[in-house]
C-alpha cells in the first residue's frame, strides 16, 4: 500500500514537537478538504476534514487550517509521536460534485526519537 513516490517531500520532526504539514490546492471552487494519513502497506486513513466556510477545525491532537485567499491548507499535529510517521496528503472536493476528490502528492513525516 505504498503511496510514496521517489520524490516526496519529507518533514523530519523530533518526538514531542509539533508538526506542520502544508498543502496548496489549485481550484478556488473546491469546497471541502480532507487530510489523510497513509502508513506503509495500508490504505489512506481519514484524519480530519474541513468545509470551505470554516478556517479552522480541531480534532484530537490535530488541527486543520484553511486559507482560501492563498488556497492553502495545513495540518498541525501536536506532540508528534513515532506512530505519526507516515505519508500525509490532502484531498479537495470540487464544488458541484458529490464525491470526486483530487489528491495532493503527499508529504512524508519522519518522527525521530
Amino acid at each position, binding site marked *: 500500500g505504498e503511496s510514496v*513516490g*521517489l520524490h516526496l517531500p519529507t518533514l523530519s520532526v523530533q518526538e514531542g514537537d509539533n508538526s506542520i504539514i502544508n498543502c496548496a490546492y489549485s481550484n478556488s471552487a473546491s469546497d*471541502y478538504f480532507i487530510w489523510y494519513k497513509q502508513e506503509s502497506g495500508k*490504505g489512506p486513513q481519514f484524519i480530519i476534514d474541513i468545509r470551505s466556510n470554516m478556517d479552522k477545525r480541531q480534532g484530537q491532537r490535530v488541527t486543520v487550517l484553511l486559507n482560501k485567499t492563498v488556497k492553502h491548507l495545513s495540518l498541525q499535529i501536536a506532540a508528534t509521536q513515532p506512530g505519526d510517521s507516515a505519508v500525509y496528503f490532502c484531498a479537495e472536493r470540487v464544488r458541484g*460534485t*458529490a*464525491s470526486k476528490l*483530487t489528491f495532493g*502528492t*503527499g508529504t512524508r513525516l519522519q518522527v525521530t526519537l
Partner: protein
Amino acid sequence: EPEVTQTPSHQVTQMGQEVILRCVPISNHLYFYWYRQILGQKVEFLVSFYNNEISEKSEIFDDQFSVERPDGSNFTLKIRSTKLEDSAMYFCASSGVRPTLGEQFFGPGTRLTVL
C-alpha cells in the same frame, strides 16, 4: 473495528486479460468508491457507487472499466482488457453517509501488475 477488505493483495496479469478486483466494504455503508495510485503518483478517483448505480466517475473510468455490487457484501472493479498503464495500486473505500459528510474508509489496496 470494522474495516474494508480487498482481495487479492497482489494481482499479476498479462496485457489484454480481464481482471476483477474484489472489495468487501463495511457492512452498513451505503457509498462505495474505487481509487487508483500509480507508483510515484497521486491517488486518483475512479468511480463512486450508490444505490446500485454509478454516482460519479472520472475521465480515467472509461469503457474498459466497470463496477458491480453482485450481492449484499461485495463490490468489484472489472478491467476488461488490461493495458500496461493500468498497473497501479487500486483502493476500495466505503462510507456510511453522504460522501462529504462522513469519512471514507479505505481498504489496504490491491497491487495490479500488467505484464
